[in-house]
């Protein structure tokens, strides 16, 4: 069947900001879909509020709207563009929910927009717990016993029937948001109440627990001729009870016989057919009873998902791309397999390797959060690794997570490296409770003498996986039995490498430098081979150079004699390092490929566009460690390596790479060090006549106290060499400072702490610039909305600066230019300034890609990462014609998105440590409207139409609070305040209802009002020091209740201005191509 000729234009909805459960995998799938549909000649219209995506590059779609993903905003886009069809299945849960909203509000019908891929009733049938269960029963498949409820009372009845423990799953949420495992009545009530609130249809499923059963996923595709194929089977190492996003998973399924596997496949097809997904991919989850093979269906996602991105990377089969083609009428047999180019896509990939995915967590950012893993996803990213055996892939994946592990154990933190290790009790406790370190505890348990049977009893992990861990432990024993590395036989060395042991692990075993291990190993001729990911287990020749390393006989790497540049990616997503850096790496690949280089991408994150096999000329799906990168480098001998686009991950490797003779292109690692090193940096600032806040560096507690005596409190302290403000804190007194130094932040000669005088009431400004060694161009000056002290990644900001005087902006630009020259920057640079009483201070300089690069690129209409990549490859800014970038006439506001609702009970106050997972952008000619759009996009639920606002501020903010109160009153909001704020408002003649503070002990207090849903927004500024209990509880309660909580008055004032603008003039939508008509191609 040919493509549909009755369609001319297609709307695609993206997934919005990166949040837990929905990360850059949807940039990957959406970008593939846009490309695929444009290839077919359709006009593609895209809406996504996330600027840090390749899909929102103006070249990806014909019409690109960076607008809120709400049915109201999308209706405006539909009215303007009149698309014939909407493809809702590629933008994650957000895109799917938006499509349903559009349908429910009659928008699709009004404008005659056809849904492609899956109709609304199909989506409902898959997502509505009861409808799904009924459908499965109809075709003879079993689901765990369950009941759908809409009230707590119904829930209590249901739990009588299914028993405890049980699983609570809210309908229509993603990543298991709001759900959980309840072990007792109290937990049950709490989770149900939360789930009912978080479900958009206020409905939860109370489900029989199948804890401990084996968990599987199938990625299934179907075309309009009813051809069905399984692209990939995935087995979870962590049995049922841990969200699959938080589980270590393996592809293909490893412990099923063909009979059991085919039964699951039959069930998968029966499921997709009964639910009625017409075309595209679906993810179906199953649980299998290990005792008798009984199979139950857990759930189905009628769309591409995180797992389908993983499956695509694991097999080489581009699910999203083909889903888009199927949606417009092709059948699977009409599509060619991209990799073999000869065989059709109507087949099932066979893989001759093992893929392991390991989740990456961020508990270090939320120390108060409960780190037990359950049915609600808590990880923020993932790393994938490929090996010829499970053991090799597992160890590669573990070292890819960059959590300080160099494999399974044998690192500096390993309690069993030398000495006593852990007690059996400690280990047993960590085995019984699923947690992010459990994989390591499997090994600890073996080393402490547990049998695999005991471990199986405690964890329910399949004995097959435990036997594999035991094999690794046995090889470890053999290695340890050697007195030195020269004692290790070639046979054992090779076997250890084949089992995935890294040079770093071997270095720990033998107490030598990693370099020494490498030299020894290479001297023995033990080097890795590279094998192709080809969808077909070598049955057909592969045209696509997608490689992984392994230690085999034959190396398949095809090496051309073209000039090569290697780009190091950013590894798994984490807070502080996310899709923004992948965006930069992808741009570097595109630009350098166009410039005639052969581009080599190295990355370990399966969610990304950078690991799409057609982004670069050669893709190496590998851990980003010195060993793995050097191995590729030795084989391919590129002309240069780019380390400045992938965030901290490649930067950390720069020195080791350079020491090994690798040529780093762009800003030299030496310059990067200059900017990081306090002393040399101070000298440079002196040279160019710029000011810093008074500061110092300390290697001991005494030194720290001495520095603060000189610079004065409050002081901002942080470890050197961190990204995302890790371990950064604002300290107001000596006692807190001592506590900070004592709190386990590593303070040593090697790693001093940095102390800066904190500039109160200063405005923070970020600048992104590009330099080529001669010329510098300032791309964007970003004014932060929140005052200095909030991590730049967590603050809202605007381009161009809405309030800064022109003279200051000029001064800031000039300062950035002179810094770039002084540091010899070639490529990207980010500078943070603070403006206090008209004085410009330099806070820090990072001569590398920053998190704001994609946002600035979209705001100004110039792809600065591409410009920078070309500059690094030797094409001057002059030659590129970008010596000056005019400030845009419209405003773009960046807003952060936080994961607080996943970590209930943690305080949501913003500070110097970054906590946001993603960002949105609002763009409009009017600043207030742009800001309002960013608030809508961030989805906090700001009550634009009026409501009740709770206002409670610290004493020094009361003056400003009066202004906020007055404005809110003028706009018709009801105010509720606690005593101090109430008095200040009353003095100014602002009416507010008085409510009790929690510590007053009288009810109803503010928590009661929040619980009753009587508050629509909270404005609460934290006190700088002292107990935060009361206010912390208020903010946590707000988050739990889904009530927006603003913690700075500058943020509140901006929000109120935004509400005012929207109320008075509404808002329009406009495509990026219209903002920058000259650049649209």
């Amino acid at each position, binding site marked *: 069947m040919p493509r549909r000729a009755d369609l001319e234009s297609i709307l695609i909805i993206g997934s919005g900001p990166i949040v837990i459960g929905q990360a850059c995998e949807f940039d990957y799938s959406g970008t593939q879909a846009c490309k695929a549909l444009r290839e077919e000649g359709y006009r593609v219209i895209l809406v996504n509020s996330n600027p840090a995506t390749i899909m929102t590059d103006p070249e990806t779609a014909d019409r690109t709207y960076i607008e809120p993903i709400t049915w109201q905003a999308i209706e405006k886009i539909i009215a303007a563009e009149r698309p014939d069809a909407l493809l809702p299945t590629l933008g994650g849960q957000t895109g799917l929910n938006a499509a349903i909203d559009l349908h429910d509000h009659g928008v699709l019908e009004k404008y005659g927009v056809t849904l492609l891929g899956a109709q609304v009733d199909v989506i409902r049938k898959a997502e509505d717990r009861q409808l799904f269960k009924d459908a499965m029963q109809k*075709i*003879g*498949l079993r689901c765990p016993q369950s009941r759908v409820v809409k009230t707590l009372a119904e829930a209590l009845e249901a739990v009588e029937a299914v028993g405890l423990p049980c699983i609570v799953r809210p309908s229509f949420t993603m990543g298991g948001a709001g759900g959980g495992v309840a072990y007792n009545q109290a937990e049950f009530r709490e989770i149900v109440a939360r789930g009912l609130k978080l479900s958009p249809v206020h409905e939860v499923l109370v489900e029989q627990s199948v804890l401990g059963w084996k968990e599987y996923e199938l990625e299934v595709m179907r075309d309009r*001729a009813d051809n069905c*194929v399984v692209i990939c*089977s995935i087995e979870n190492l962590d049995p049922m009870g841990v969200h699959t996003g938080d589980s270590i998973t393996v592809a*293909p*399924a*490893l*412990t*099923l*016989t*063909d*009979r059991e*596997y*085919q*039964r699951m*496949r039959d*069930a998968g097809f*029966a499921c997709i057919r009964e639910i009625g997904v017409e075309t595209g991919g679906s993810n179906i989850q199953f649980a299998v009873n290990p*005792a*008798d*093979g009984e199979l139950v269906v857990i759930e189905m996602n009628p769309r591409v998902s995180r797992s389908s991105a993983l499956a695509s990377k694991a097999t080489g089969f581009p699910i999203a791309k083909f889903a888009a083609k199927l949606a417009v009428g092709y059948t*699977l*047999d009409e599509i060619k397999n991209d990799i073999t180019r*000869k*065989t*059709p896509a*109507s*087949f*099932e*990939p*066979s*893989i*001759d390797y*093992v893929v392991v995915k390991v989740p990456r967590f961020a508990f270090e950012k939320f120390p108060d959060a409960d780190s037990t893993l359950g049915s609600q996803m808590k990880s923020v990213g993932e790393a994938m690794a490929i090996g*010829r*055996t*499970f053991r090799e892939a597992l160890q590669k994946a573990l070292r890819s997570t960059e959590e300080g592990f160099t494999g399974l154990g044998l690192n500096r933190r390993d309690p069993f490296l030398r000495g006593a290790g852990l007690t059996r009790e400690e280990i047993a406790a960590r085995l019984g409770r699923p947690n992010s370190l459990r994989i390591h505890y499997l090994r600890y348990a073996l080393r402490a003498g547990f049998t695999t049977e005991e471990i199986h009893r405690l964890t329910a992990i*399949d*004995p*097959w996986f435990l*036997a*594999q861990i*035991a*094999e690794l432990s*046995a090889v470890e024993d053999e290695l340890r039995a050697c007195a030195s590395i020269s004692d290790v036989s070639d*046979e*054992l060395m090779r*076997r250890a490498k084949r089992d995935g042991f890294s040079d770093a692990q071997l270095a720990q075993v033998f107490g030598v430098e990693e370099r020494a291990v490498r030299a020894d190993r290479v001297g023995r001729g033990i080097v890795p081979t590279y*094998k192709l990911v080809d969808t*077909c*287990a*070598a*049955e*057909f020749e592969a045209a696509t150079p997608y490689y992984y390393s392994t230690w*085999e*006989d*034959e190396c*398949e790497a095809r090496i051309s004699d073209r000039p090569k540049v290697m780009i190091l990616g950013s590894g798994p997503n984490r807070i502080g390092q996310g899709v923004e850096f992948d965006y930069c790496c992808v741009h570097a690949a595109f630009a350098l490929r166009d410039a005639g280089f052969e581009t080599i991408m190295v990355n370990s994150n399966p969610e990304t566009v950078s690991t799409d096999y057609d982004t670069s000329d050669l893709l190496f799906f590998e851990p980003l460690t010195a060993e793995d990168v050097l191995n590729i480098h030795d084989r391919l001998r590129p002309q240069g390596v780019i380390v400045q686009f992938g965030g901290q991950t490649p930067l950390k490797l720069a020195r080791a790479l350079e020491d090994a003779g690798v040529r780093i292109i762009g800003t030299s690692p030496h310059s990067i060090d200059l900017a990081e090193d306090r002393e040399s940096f101070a000298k440079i600032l002196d040279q160019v006549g710029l000011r810093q806040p008074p500061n110092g560096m300390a290697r001991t507690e005494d030194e720290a106290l001495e520095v603060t005596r000189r610079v004065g409190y409050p002081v901002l302290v942080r470890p050197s060499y961190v990204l995302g403000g890790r371990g950064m804190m604002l300290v107001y007194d000596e006692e807190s400072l001592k506590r900070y130094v004592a709190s386990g932040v590593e303070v040593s000669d090697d790693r001093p702490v940095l102390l800066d005088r904190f500039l109160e009431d200063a405005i923070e400004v970020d600048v992104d610039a590009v330099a080529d060694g001669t010329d510098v161009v300032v791309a964007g000056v970003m004014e932060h909305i929140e005052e200095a002290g909030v991590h730049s990644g967590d603050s809202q900001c605007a381009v161009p600066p809405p309030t800064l005087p022109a003279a200051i902006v000029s001064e800031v630009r000039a300062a950035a230019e002179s810094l770039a020259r002084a540091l010899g920057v070639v490529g990207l640079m980010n500078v943070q300034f603070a403006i206090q009483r008209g004085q410009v201070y330099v806070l820090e300089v990072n001569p590398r890609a920053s998190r704001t690069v994609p946002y600035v690129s979209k705001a100004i209409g110039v792809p600065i990462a591409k410009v920078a990549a070309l500059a690094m490859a030797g094409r001057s800014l002059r030659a590129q014609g970008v010596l000056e970038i005019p400030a845009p006439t419209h405003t773009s506001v960046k807003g952060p998105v936080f994961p607080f609702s996943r970590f209930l009970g943690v305080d949501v106050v913003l500070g110097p440590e970054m906590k946001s997972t993603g960002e949105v952008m609002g763009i409009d000619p009017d600043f207030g409207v742009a800001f309002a759009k960013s608030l809508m996009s961030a989805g906090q639920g700001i009550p634009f139409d009026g409501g009740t606002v709770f206002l409670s501020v610290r004493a020094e903010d009361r003056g400003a609070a009066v202004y906020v109160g007055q404005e809110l009153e003028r706009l018709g909001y009801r105010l509720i305040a606690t005593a101090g704020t109430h008095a200040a408002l009353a003095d100014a003649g602002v009416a507010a209802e008085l409510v009790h503070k929690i510590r007053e002990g009288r009810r109803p207090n503010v928590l009661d009002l929040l619980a009753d849903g009587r508050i629509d927004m909270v404005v609460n500024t934290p006190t700088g020091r002292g107990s935060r209990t009361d206010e912390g509880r208020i903010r946590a309660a707000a988050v739990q209740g889904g009530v927006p909580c603003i913690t700075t008055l500058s943020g509140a004032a901006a929000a109120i201005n935004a509400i005012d603008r929207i109320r008075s003039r509404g808002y329009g939508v406009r495509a990026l191509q219209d903002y920058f008509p000259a650049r649209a191609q």
Partner: protein
Amino acid sequence: MAASRPPALLALEDGSVFRGTAFGASGTCQGEVVFNTSLTGYQEILTDPSYKGQIVTMTPPLIGNYGINAEDGEAERAWVEGFVIRELSPLASNFRSTEDLDTYLARSGVVAIEGVDTRALTKRLRENGSLRGVLSTEELDRDTLVDRARAAPLMEGRDLVQEVTRRREGTWDEGVSERVFLPEPGAFEGPVFDLTVVDYGAKHNILRNLASLGFRVRVVPATMPADAVLAPGPDAVFLSNGPGDPAVLTYAQDVARAVLERGVPLLGICLGHQIIAHALGGKTFKLPFGHHGGNHPVMDLATRKVEITAQNHGFAVDTALFAKGDVIETHRSLNDGTVEGLRHAELPVMCVQYHPEAAPGPHDSLYLFRRFRETLC
């Protein structure tokens, strides 16, 4: 553990030698080396009589994970000549497992080797075509083994059917286990038919499927003359899968011709399909490296629907057979365009090159048994 095992060598006729670690039985075996890309189902593959004369290498690297069980054999014994894998599982983990793979192969006398770069081996077979090889745990001299590989018989011209077929006529009444299918296939309706299966190395799952569909199954040896095959007056005849070169099986072609002449409905699978093609005046030829795996797309040319099929064949039917128009191609491989099924314009015969009975493999084509049965009603 791997270190304590003795070495083994696999030598190919092109001079390449792969070194690994021995498992299973010790000894030396020879045969045509072929690769199989099925991710699951090594037990079914080991016991498939069609692999007689072949050394099988599996492309998935981890084998033995779920052990061996009592139900999944496709014959009473293992039939592969030798077995080549990347890694043997240290543990068999499955509720149905009754023994581990190593023990089973040792007991079955199958020489096996692990630790081989099976991807490199597979690429070699893809590029050079299937090669004769020798696998040994005793003789570790490379040149000697390569010479022996070159001296091994070619697959072309070999009659291996007589080595795997049953000696005596019998019946089969075991059906498909209920556990195999989800959702349930539903019970058949209508009359019970008498079916004679000529056993060229029939896989048990074919017989199970036929029995489940209401056939009264009589199984006869491959060498039984046509008259004897047809003597009880069966409602239909089935020619099974099996090993070796179909061109030399003139006795089997005679049976097929006799059945066709008598107008008795005839069904064939794999070797049976090739024998029928010969009986209809066609020819077969050797494929470069054959089709062995569970992910082969085949189009049903009547419905244009695609089935993902299990396949295991080294020979294919030449399309010249369709030139006259009385024999019609019904199924085609979407990977290489080779013939996957045919029927006759008038005679009641249908046959497929692939394996609708799966085991191992997808169940997409089970409908063929039903379709055949419907032609009898």
